[in-house]
């Protein structure tokens, strides 16, 4: 059995990606839940540069950055491949993952918005990104970004969308509107129903409670 440990936060999309990747490939690992307010000395030793999760430790050697980890796993455990085989398709997959990352600061802005106007602005910006995903990636009405099966793009964007649900609950605003983004909405439903994803999808109530707590602590300390 591979000596694999994953240091992460169960509620973080970046940790989710690695968990889903490991589960989809049937790889066993030891899960180490980190406390963001009391990070373990091991974590700080393994990721001295960013001091962030997730960190995968393989045979005592740390790998940091969620997508670097996912690619590393895909290279070493090629069963159920997550990256396309063809170099052009691989480049496209990486492009869309990098693109999805652009949605993150907007989401942060939404979480910390203090008035309706700021919230509105953040939602509109997110919709611009959604439109691009809807029109460019799902135009051929494919079931998943990966085609008939989920791939690395589904995992990357799926993890961000899992978090999006919590933002919708937190700020009481509907962002993934089915009427505006029918293909994206359908994609997310399909994604959540993939058996391994369904089994390992974060609990909605727990997510909301955790985010509320984190936000409270953040605002209290500022």
């Amino acid at each position: 059995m591979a000596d694999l440990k994953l240091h992460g936060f169960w509620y973080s999309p970046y940790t989710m990606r690695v968990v889903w990747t490991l589960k989809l490939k049937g790889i066993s690992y030891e899960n180490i839940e980190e406390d963001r307010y009391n990070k373990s000395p091991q974590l700080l030793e393994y990721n001295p540069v960013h001091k962030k999760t997730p960190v995968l430790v393989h045979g005592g050697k740390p790998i940091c950055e969620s997508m670097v980890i996912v690619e590393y796993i895909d290279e070493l455990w090629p069963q159920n491949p997550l990256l396309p085989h063809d170099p052009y398709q691989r480049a496209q997959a990486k492009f869309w993952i990098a693109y999805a990352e652009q949605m993150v600061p907007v989401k942060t802005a939404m979480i910390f918005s203090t008035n309706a106007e700021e919230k509105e602005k953040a939602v509109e910006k997110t919709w611009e990104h959604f439109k691009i995903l809807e029109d460019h990636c799902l135009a051929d009405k494919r079931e998943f970004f990966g085609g008939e099966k989920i791939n690395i793009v589904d995992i990357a964007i799926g993890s961000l969308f899992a978090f999006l649900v919590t933002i919708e609950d937190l700020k009481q605003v509907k962002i993934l509107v089915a009427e505006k983004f029918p293909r994206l909405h359908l994609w997310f439903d399909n994604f959540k129903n993939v058996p391994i994803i369904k089994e390992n999808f974060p609990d909605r109530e727990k997510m909301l409670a955790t985010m509320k707590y984190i936000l409270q602590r953040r605002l209290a300390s500022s």
Partner: protein
Amino acid sequence: MEDKPSEVVLFGSWYSPYTSRVALALKLKGIPFKYVEENLSNKSELLLKYNPTHKKVPVLLHNGMPICESLIILEYIDEVWNHAPKLLPEDPYQRARVRFWANYTDQKIMPASYPILLLKGEEKQKAIEDMEEMQRVLEEGIKQDFPEQFSFFNGNTMGLLDIVMGVNSYNYKAFHEVTNSEIIGPKNPKIFMWVNAMKEHPLMKDTLPPHDKVVAMLKSMIAPTPDV
């Protein structure tokens, strides 16, 4: 005029380090290509067609298909033209480290140069200190991940990380001159030694803009714009 599908075309800008990365990789691999200089204040229809999402350079066109984002392009080149010299190491763990530091350069170091250029007084000083800390982190990280003494992080030939970091630091003297700072220097000996060796590499000299041109370009970025 339609390009033949097998042709490789690079859309770029002479002062874009992201463009230089791709040009270097193509030359290193001995891949013939056509270069199209884009005027970034008046982007061509082709650029907008090939990179509609970001409308940025560089874009690599191969077999009529566009690939965007410099790090993605570099990996694509290494996969398609997978003859030596390889840009990425064979070992998956080493590949992960190379990708980590390439990401660190792009996410942290590259954006950090703008505040140094554009801010003044105390804010500028803070920006310089932030950058110096990043360089220190880089020095420590490089020492740990690439401990042997060799010319490049890739071994005997330039690799992806040499290209990414090398392009960024090639004209460090121009940056120091214009911003009155000393970001790269003997306090980070491993990087300093490596950067100065890279400056002498014929491909780097062949591809990167000369010192004076970069100084002029950086100065034009700081120059106050007239009130409109």
